[in-house]
């Protein structure tokens, strides 16, 4: 994860006075987030006697948070566009219910179900986006209505019952692992060296590859910045940050490889994260969403079709909520009327912890993902410690407040 890697060299200043302190203060938020994640992980690793970073727990952590992260990607886009979507938890639950009814009650094949569910999700998003974009009804209200409507629809669809279990092939979406394609001897040899019971070579190779490509992208960006005379991250920071991130990725995939390998959802999540990071930062449509959130009138007068963009942001959100709904249902192997209850709050919190601004125009995919992980680690760590749900809620609330206060404080200081 290239946390503070700001490939958009935005706030960077020119040659004069490029002290380390100055650089740090303008990137405090990104480093702060990375640092907070590490600090929280170290803390729980210690107080749980090493349970947090056990292979099985890491796997769990990823599976448990996959649907939050998937939705956080869409939520970031919605929030950057200057809106909010409160309905995602309900939509997610509704899609799970739809999948269950289709497969369990009506014996529809899995692929048909998945396609229908994703399309339905996109249509739900489009329906809500229509009111927000073309009728200028505040998104808070439209999606609050949506939240109630789809909560009710799931209840109706499931007739108040839990429906399951799902066919085996469907469960694999959430609970399956990518099989090792390398010959077993390699894995056995590595396992021998590190005195592990087993090692999934593919997982390890993927981790090393991911870490290497991040470093490579970072280096290339640095070289390009230099060519343009743009002041970059101080060398020490660059090296330290990349070393930490690369080591973390390799460590995690190594742990995964000693358990059951790469979870399928990790692949889904990873691919989606990369796709959305690229979309938001490197494409014209992404750029326009930032302009829309930053100053809608100016965006409109610059020839940007602001209504259509808002519409698309919600449609995309619906699509991702549906994807999350499928993952969630597959993971629990049953659809319940309560699925996704209050989950929108976790998703929105993740995005704001990740540095997005309520007023729109500000925020990054990578921040939202790390924000979601941060919440996930908090949940997981506190559960292992046996902290009650009451305290968990309070602590999460305070973390959210702290993150936003930090943002505001930072902004004021730079003012």
């Amino acid at each position, binding site marked *: 994860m290239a946390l503070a890697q700001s490939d958009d060299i935005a706030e960077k200043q020119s040659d004069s006075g490029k002290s380390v302190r100055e650089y740090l203060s303008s990137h405090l938020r990104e480093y702060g987030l990375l640092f907070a994640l590490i600090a929280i992980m170290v803390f729980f690793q210690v107080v749980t006697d090493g349970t947090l970073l056990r292979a099985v727990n890491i796997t769990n952590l990823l599976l448990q948070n996959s649907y939050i992260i998937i939705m956080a990607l869409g939520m970031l886009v919605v929030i950057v566009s200057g809106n909010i979507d409160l309905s995602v938890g309900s939509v997610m639950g509704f899609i799970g219910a739809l999948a269950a009814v289709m497969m369990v009650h009506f014996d529809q094949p899995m692929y048909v179900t998945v396609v229908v569910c994703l399309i339905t999700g996109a249509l739900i998003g489009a329906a809500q986006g229509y009111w927000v974009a073309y009728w200028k009804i505040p998104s808070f209200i439209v999606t609050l209505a949506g939240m109630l409507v789809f909560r009710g629809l799931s209840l109706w669809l499931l007739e108040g019952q839990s429906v399951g279990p799902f066919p085996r092939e469907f469960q694999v979406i959430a609970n399956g692992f990518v099989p090792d394609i390398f010959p077993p001897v390699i894995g056995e040899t590595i396992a021998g060296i590190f005195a592990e019971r087993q090692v999934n070579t593919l997982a390890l190779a993927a981790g090393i590859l991911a870490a290497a490509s991040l470093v490579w992208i970072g280096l290339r960006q640095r070289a*390009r910045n230099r060519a343009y005379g743009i002041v970059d991250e101080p060398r020490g920071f660059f090296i330290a940050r990349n070393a930490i991130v690369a080591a973390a990725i390799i460590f995690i995939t190594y742990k995964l490889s000693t358990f059951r390998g790469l979870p399928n959802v990790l692949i889904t999540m990873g691919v989606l994260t990369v796709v959305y990071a690229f979309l938001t930062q490197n494409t014209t449509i992404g750029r326009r969403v930032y302009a829309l959130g930053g100053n809608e009138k100016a965006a409109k007068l610059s*020839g940007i079709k602001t209504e259509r963009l808002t519409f698309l942001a919600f449609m995309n959100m619906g699509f991702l909520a549906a994807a999350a709904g499928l993952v969630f249902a597959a993971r629990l192997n049953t659809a319940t009327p309560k699925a996704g209850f209050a989950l929108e709050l976790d998703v929105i919190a993740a995005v704001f912890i990740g540095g997005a601004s309520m007023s729109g*125009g500000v925020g990054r995919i990578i921040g939202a993902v790390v924000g979601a992980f941060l919440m996930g680690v908090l949940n997981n760590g506190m559960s292992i410690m046996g902290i009650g749900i009451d305290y968990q809620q309070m602590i999460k609330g305070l973390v959210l407040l702290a993150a936003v206060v930090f943002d505001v404080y930072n902004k004021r200081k730079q003012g």
Partner: protein
Amino acid sequence: MTTLLEMREITKEFPGVRALDRVSIAVKQGEIHAICGENGAGKSTLMKVLSGVYPTGSYEGEMTFEGEPIAFRDISDSEARGIIIIHQELALVPQLSIAENIFLGNERAKRGVIDWRETNTRTEELLAKVGLKEPPTTKVDAIGVGKQQLVEIAKALSKDVKLLILDEPTAALQENDSRKLLDLMLELKAQGVTCIIISHKLGEVRYVADTVTVIRDGMTVSTLDASEGLSEDRIVRDMVGRDMTHRFPEHHRKPAEVLMEVSGWNAWHPQHAERQVIKNASFTVRRGEVVGIAGVMGSGRTELAMSIFGQSYGRNISGEVKLGGKPVDVSSVDKAIHAGISYVTEDRKSLGLVLDETIRFNTTLAHLEGVSSGGILNRNEETRVAERYRDALNIRTPSVFQKTINLSGGNQQKVVLAKWLNTAPEVLILDEPTRGIDVGAKYEIYTIINELAAEGKGVVMISSEMPELIGMCDRIYVMNEGALVGELAAGEASQEKIMSLIVNE
């Protein structure tokens, strides 16, 4: 006369910018002191230091007021001493009434309950003082900018002001409104209020100022005394650091065939459907021609431009736009841009810029196609484009990665201009393009306009400054109450002729 305020060796730095570099200034009791300087020279920053917007500790240097050292932690501190600043951007709440605005944060109340009678009578007194005839209950968004400016001053007067600071108070005003405001300043001076005024309009500076301090690149260049006679040329020379003999660059234009032709253009008010805002307007722009549109505020010039530019204003719009003889579809902004029309908005902050984003972001925003292929941005190309415009328009900034909110007003205007030049328009409509811009930068913008005309583009220039229209345009249309009421060729145009066309209607 005694010295009321002294600021000594003030230095203020922002990341990568030294906005003020040991600036000193002394303001005498009871005078009107003008501060002049180019865009980004540090005028507003200096006043923000003085009024506590930048708190003590965030700058270096010392200040004394009435002989005592001062160091403010925030604006309320400085207001308590009687130093009141009216910022470049007005700070009124549009949905509240005049009275509510004047006593905002300073309510006439007994135990938390507002005494409306006293509020309104006090407001009436204050409004009488500033010469504004409006009921205290009028909503601020229902009155024009000129009157809003007076409300700001009334608000300042409600606070027992000793030193009143006005940052470009007349930038958005018509000449007669400006004159009223300046006369009010003179009146306040007679009552013993000391004033500091920042302005790019040197005629006004000469009219009111007793002393002029000129700042350049964050340093004090000179202090001129009105009793020794103020000449505009002298002020300009100190501001820009060289002699400027002409205010308008020379041009030899040869307008060619008709490029844009608007005929029978009508538009109605977006909320009040029965009000026709544009009435059967027809005009032409030739290749290589600069066409002006004169008129008083509210005459419908901006509305005309915006309704043509992608129907961004008004409803039930009808009429025809032809470019190069062929009718074009201008029903949405992107279609208008695509057809070759660009419109530089009058209000750069709310309509022109995404303030939290960088110069680069804003420069390419209206023409992302130029820096992308297949929808994927090429950031290096983007940087190159932004830097080209920074150099061409002389935008003062440490880098194109600076957020536009951190730029001085004039430099923000140049970024907006860069954004529209980057769309490579055939016809460029400029709405008050030099508002709040210093003489040197004006000259640069005029030069750019001339270059566009020389390339065979058509330029439409809407401006409230008649000398500017007369100095720059080949033809001037005069607009009044939504209709084009007259047309003057370059040779015959004069302020009197324009005014008489407006009045005759």
